[in-house]
């Protein structure tokens, strides 16, 4: 693979529709018709996107003349999962901070309960 082909890979992944098609193909092989389904564009337009992905070596089409399903080359799947994994990690960090806040909320409630118990005991004594 030469530099020209490498820049084709980058260019192919720079387009949001094609990135989304890649995400779809990460779930399993799909025909051009199936790929076109979620979009408000023609099958021909999706066909062009598939050609760009195929030229970049990201997607292959089998020779099955009837369906010709598109297949994602596994390494690109890694790239997408990497993006999603990073997003997941940020969410995980956020929710671990929330865990801490929730635990501290409980401690505050317990401390407040203890305080009011002491208060009651003082009242008992004073009486």
């Amino acid at each position, binding site marked *: 693979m030469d530099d020209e082909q490498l820049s084709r890979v980058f260019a192919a992944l720079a387009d949001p529709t094609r990135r989304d098609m890649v995400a779809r193909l990460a779930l399993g092989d799909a025909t051009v018709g199936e790929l076109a389904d979620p979009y408000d564009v023609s099958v021909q337009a999706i066909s062009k996107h598939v050609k760009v992905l195929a030229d970049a070596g990201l997607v292959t089409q089998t020779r099955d003349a009837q369906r010709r399903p598109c297949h994602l080359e596994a390494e690109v799947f890694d790239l997408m999962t990497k993006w999603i994994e990073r997003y997941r990690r940020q969410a995980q960090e*956020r929710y671990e901070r929330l865990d801490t806040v929730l635990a501290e909320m409980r401690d505050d409630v317990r401390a407040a309960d203890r305080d009011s118990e002491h208060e009651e005991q003082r009242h008992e004594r004073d009486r």
Partner: protein
Amino acid sequence: MNATGNRHQVSIEADPALPIIRMTRDFDATPSELMRAHLDPDLFVRWVGPNGMETEILDWYATTGGRWRYVARAGGEEFGFHGSFHEVGEDTIVQTFTYDGQPDGVALETLRFEDLGDGRTRLHAQSLVDSFEGRDQWLASGMEVGVEEGYAKLDALVGALR
């Protein structure tokens, strides 16, 4: 966190047919405690993050038809976010989310707190973005490092194919 110290893990899913991101996460807390942590601004700023950023609430009216606005600051940089509380229910919060830097973009977020009993709750968070492009930008936002890593990996792969 459970008794062995293992954290509950968040699971995330990008819908292939709709510009939606779904997340699920369990907590050792009741639904009402979780609602409070989302709706009380003093509690919210303590966890919304990201790590290393200071969050300041500028406007907060957490009720059906209410609104919110906050800024996150770090190293002289400032990122503002705002939105509406569309619906604050018993165990659901429906709100919008907009990044000030992209005022035309809006995500519709639905948070549902499912009571699992025994003081545990499952959070179902769904974000509907207004386009696939918006979602992918969002997924990739702040992910320059991730994308760089991905490209580095592609580089290596391409090198191996030569």
